[in-house]
């Protein structure tokens, strides 16, 4: 009777069923693939190429086969059995190990790329073909990232094949990651043009509206560079408000963005791990808006500096003796500080390293200034809302459970209120997972957007203050 006495700390779903032999075989391929990549890292020159490609092949075949085995056969539907009971998805030992390995990979990638040499070199051929230049650590990173989105995207397509919304949305993030974040920037390099990501915008790609970047693009890219600057400015300042007005922030966060692409595919298995508590929401507000404010300020100061409006102290180098910013101007120092702490550590190391423990949207929820900007627009200047269906909610909690952004969706649904939250990225999983057909993503007229259903007399008690 230990199960009962230790409840609720012990999930009721124990013990999980034994893993079937077929599933073990597919997972064995994944493990062998990872082993081959590990061997590559230490292999002599002659072996590293074959080991690398064998690793990639095994990893890909294993992931695709496992996804098909797990989700692609049998009836389609929401399959969340044992989500909170398995070590890998319930913050168990496997999850901790995965988190540490991912974090470690980012640390090596950012600060000790020389140790990745053996993994980079086998990609030279591909890099030469695509980009007309040898591979570097960023090409390795981009390739792994894109592969993760495509392979785990296939898993998401199998898993959510009963939902046209999820199918199309998953296809969209896979398309943008492969085309706009991998092929196109490589192709631009091959054509001797500036490397440019047409699917990332300021303030997420914060330097795209920095005077230095604008200057470089226009100088180096000529007509195309002018177009790139124009594209970046229009997307950030015009298209973003307009698209968000009609569709909510989902047009970007869960359909286009590369960070979103990884979260929605590789991170899908971790979406329930986002903290739904009021405390977490307070941290969200405390972090994300100051970060947006900081990058807006830095950008504005850089332009003022470039225009020569600021006193010379701001734009001339100082030797301060401080790490990171020694010997640069205060303005450049600010952008360096932002780039190091927010651009590298938060969005990369923590953002992805925390996947198996805090869910896949840690960066998007607590850090991303683009998400903050889109969120403000979505909350105050948008037609988007998640409608709740009259009195049909049973407070079961499935919607909150699957919300990767940590929104306690059921608080709204059980009161018959539409969900209008700055954080919502519109992934639609709450609607997909709802067992009673209560939630629906809609772009309706703005009048009555906050109107609650008269079919539930909502308590007047506030959820968030």
């Amino acid at each position: 009777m230990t199960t009962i006495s230790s409840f609720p700390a012990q999930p009721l779903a124990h013990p999980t069923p034994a893993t079937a032999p077929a599933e073990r075989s597919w997972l064995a391929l994944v493990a062998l693939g990872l082993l081959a990549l590990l061997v590559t890292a230490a292999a002599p020159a002659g072996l590293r190429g074959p080991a690398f490609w064998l690793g990639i092949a095994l990893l890909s075949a294993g992931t695709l086969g496992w996804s098909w085995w797990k989700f692609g056969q049998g009836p389609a539907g929401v399959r969340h059995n044992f989500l909170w009971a398995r070590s890998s998805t319930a913050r168990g030992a496997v999850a901790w190990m995965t988190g540490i390995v991912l974090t470690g990979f980012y640390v090596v990638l950012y600060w000790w790329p020389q140790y990745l040499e053996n993994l980079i070199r086998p990609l030279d051929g591909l890099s030469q073909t695509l980009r007309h230049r040898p591979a570097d650590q960023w090409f390795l990173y981009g390739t792994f990232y894109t592969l993760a989105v495509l392979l785990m995207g296939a898993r998401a397509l199998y898993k959510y094949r009963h939902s046209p919304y999820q199918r199309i949305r998953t296809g969209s993030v896979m398309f943008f990651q492969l085309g706009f974040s991998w092929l196109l920037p490589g192709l631009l390099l091959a054509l001797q043009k500036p490397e440019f990501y047409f699917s990332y915008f300021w303030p997420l790609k914060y330097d795209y509206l920095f005077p230095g970047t604008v200057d470089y693009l226009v100088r180096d890219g000529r007509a195309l560079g002018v177009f790139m600057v124009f594209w970046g400015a229009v997307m950030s300042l015009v298209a973003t408000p307009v698209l968000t007005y009609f569709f909510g922030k989902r047009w970007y966060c869960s359909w286009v963005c590369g960070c979103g692409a990884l979260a929605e595919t590789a991170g899908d298995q971790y979406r329930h791990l986002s903290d739904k508590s009021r405390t977490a929401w307070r941290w969200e507000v405390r972090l994300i808006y100051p970060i947006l404010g900081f990058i807006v300020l830095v950008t504005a100061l850089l332009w003022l500096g470039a225009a020569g409006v600021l006193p010379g102290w701001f734009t001339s180098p100082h030797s301060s003796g401080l790490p990171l910013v020694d010997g640069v101007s205060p303005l450049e120092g600010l952008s360096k500080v932002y780039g190091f702490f927010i651009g590298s550590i938060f969005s990369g190391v923590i953002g992805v390293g925390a996947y198996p423990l805090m869910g896949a949207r840690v960066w998007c929820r607590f850090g991303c200034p683009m998400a903050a900007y889109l969120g403000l627009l979505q909350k105050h200047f948008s037609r988007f809302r998640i409608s709740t269906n009259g009195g049909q909610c049973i407070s079961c909690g499935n919607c909150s459970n699957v919300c990767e952004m940590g929104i306690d969706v059921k608080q709204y649904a059980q009161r018959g209120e539409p969900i209008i939250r700055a954080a919502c990225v519109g992934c639609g999983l709450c609607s997909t997972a709802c067992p009673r057909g209560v939630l629906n993503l809609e772009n309706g007229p703005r009048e009555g957007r906050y109107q609650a259903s008269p079919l539930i007399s909502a308590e007047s008690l506030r959820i968030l203050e």
Partner: protein
Amino acid sequence: MHLVIIGNGIAGVSCAQTVRRLQPEARITLVSSESPHHFSRPALMYLYMGHMRWEDVKPHADWYWPENRLELVHYHATAIDVEKRLVHLAAGPPLAYDALLLATGATTRYADWPGQQLSGVQGLVSKADVELMAATTPGVQQAVVVGGGLIGVELAEMLHARRIPVTVLVRDAHYWGSVLPPEEAALVDAEFRRHGVLVQYRTELAELLGDEGGRVQAVRTSTGQELPAQWVGIATGVQPNLSLAQSAGLDTDRGVLVDELLQTSVPGIYAAGDCAQRRQPPPGEAAIEPLWYTGRMQGETVAHTICGQLTPYRRGPWFNSAKFFDLEYQTYGVVPPRPVEGQASFWWQPARGHCGLRLHYRLDDNLTLLGLNALGLRLRHAVCDGWLRQGVSVRHALEHLGEANFDPEFFPQHEEAVLAAFNQQNPTLLPLVLRRRKGLLTRLFST
């Protein structure tokens, strides 16, 4: 005023929340021996399947209760002293009340089967039930579920998730025969088959057979079959928890008897939710409504009466929903399981695709819509409710079907096909024209 509520299920909690809103100064105490905090009863299955943890099925975080001054007492209420207006608890001093709500819920109903006391035989109503199920199902090779209703299919899905082979015994000729027409039941049956769950219709439980240790080993059915089963789920219905009301001398029948204000036979004592039985329910309504939604509505209603705004319980058009494995079900208004004189039913089902829609209507001049059933489709509650309250014609409902479409974006839209089928089946009526589609174009072009 001190309101004491016995039971922290949806009826009790809805009453507490509503009283807090109506009378901010009232003292409100919720007594429950089942769980320290309110939880979603329909979500118990997800705990067992590992979709969620205990804290995830609590509709409110723990800070909610003290912040809203809702006092929680986690003891069993043992007796009510009607004269002194006291509730006695299993521990601690008794609670004095000015108003008392019995929201004691219901428990599994057993039909005096031989062997029903064997271990491994249980229902699924309470938190203790799901914990017992988690403790007694590991190692089970075969399971049997008795009952063709909503809890029956939940139990089958739970066992199936744990890869325990399960056979469901259903008394009627088709699934949920007291509620679903045959076409809907056939879709549910297909869903069972898709998931490899065996269903035996026209079969009842006759006897449960155990081993020397008192653990169930098999069931004998009304058809004389003996099915091995080391675990048996009883899902043939629930019965109100009455002992507290009975010992206090309240009028009871199958449930605690209440008038339309949900008052019991003793002034100051009310009953709501699964335990309450209306003395004179309006025609067509059940005396006992053991449902999440009606529990919520009864709790809200009785709160008004308790606060002095006498409010009879009028729940409006019926609605309910469920999910049979992967197949969602919604119902609005009245859809009888069998044909009724003077009424007609239009059933639509695509040649391919696992869904269906029924519109049930009266054969009067207006062809008044009486109810809708949807399987594998989502309908908009507010629209269906409005149609039923206004008594619109089935023709109006069909022509404006897009208005009621609550399916997510990019899902196939069936309105045209539904209308075509209706026109084909009713060649003597003026053909219907689809006037309301779903989506953006609708909003732009509709008046």
